[in-house]
């Protein structure tokens, strides 16, 4: 088990990490198809396609945005996403006084 980069986080800034894990293009996505069918049966005819994945919101203590982004990528590669069938995107924002917008 490699050790994480944010061992001691006494003085660190808190960061909100949004991880979105989606099925790889081309991999079948029965959930997405079922949701698409459900929406169209509710007369949302404009819905062309739906892909269903996971949204993970983490609160992580870390020295800098870059350090937290690096650690989040490590977490995704090791656990949060299965490279055989999934891709991931990471979005990091500071929390607390320095809270960024959005």
């Amino acid at each position, binding site marked *: *088990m490699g050790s994480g980069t944010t061992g001691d986080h006494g003085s660190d800034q808190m960061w909100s990490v949004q991880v979105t894990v989606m099925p790889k293009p081309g991999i*079948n996505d029965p959930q997405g198809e*079922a949701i698409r069918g459900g929406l169209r049966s509710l007369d949302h005819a404009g819905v062309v396609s739906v892909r269903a994945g996971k949204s993970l919101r983490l609160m992580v203590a870390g020295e800098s945005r870059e350090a937290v982004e690096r650690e989040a990528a490590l977490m995704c590669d*090791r*656990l949060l996403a299965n490279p*055989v069938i999934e891709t991931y995107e990471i979005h990091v924002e500071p929390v607390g006084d320095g809270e960024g917008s959005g």
Partner: protein
Amino acid sequence: MIAIVTFPGSNGDADALHAVRDDLGAPARLVDYRETDLSGFDAVILPGGFSYGDALRCGAIARFAPVIEPIRAFAARGGPVLGICNGFQILTEAHLLPGALRRNATLRFHCRWVHVRVESATTAWTDTVEAGTVLRLPVAHGDGSFVAGADVLAEIEANGQVVVRYCEPDGTVSAASNPNGSAGAIAGVANRAGNVVGLMPHPERAVDPLLGGEDGRMILRGVLERTHVAS
């Protein structure tokens, strides 16, 4: 002696123990997921269940349990390893077996008896069964749809790593007999060496005619007979 590994959330460990030890008479015991020494064992079984509540993906967290690295070493030494249902999912997450198991195409959990055809009779767990034999086994899962990249699928088929395929009672493969949408109707795969096997059907639930069938013995007996040495 057979090791049956208990992860937090495993619920098929007791069933595997009863089948192997009580019904088939082979020495076996439960091994905790924190165990790191597997030297005294002749075979390792990863049972069914919902390790870590299937959080994130089935087997995603169990893959980091302390016992996994010793299992990797045990497999590298050629020791027979069998992953049943959740155990199969854990072995794919740990990259000891190719591919992945995804949500059933029906989006529902299914518990029923299916037929599977033995495709490879050279793995440690099927070398006492003739290829083409049709077995009637129970399945009970919600995430059993086997999937892999096109290249990996082609490789598995070419190397004879497909162990069992869902089929009709007469052995023919059909859409109707595929309970979860698995690619190539694959119900079980092996690694290249053939000593590590993963199965979605439950052989340990098919060892007593009183409970619906005993074809599961044909999967378990090979390894068990070889380990049935005084221990």
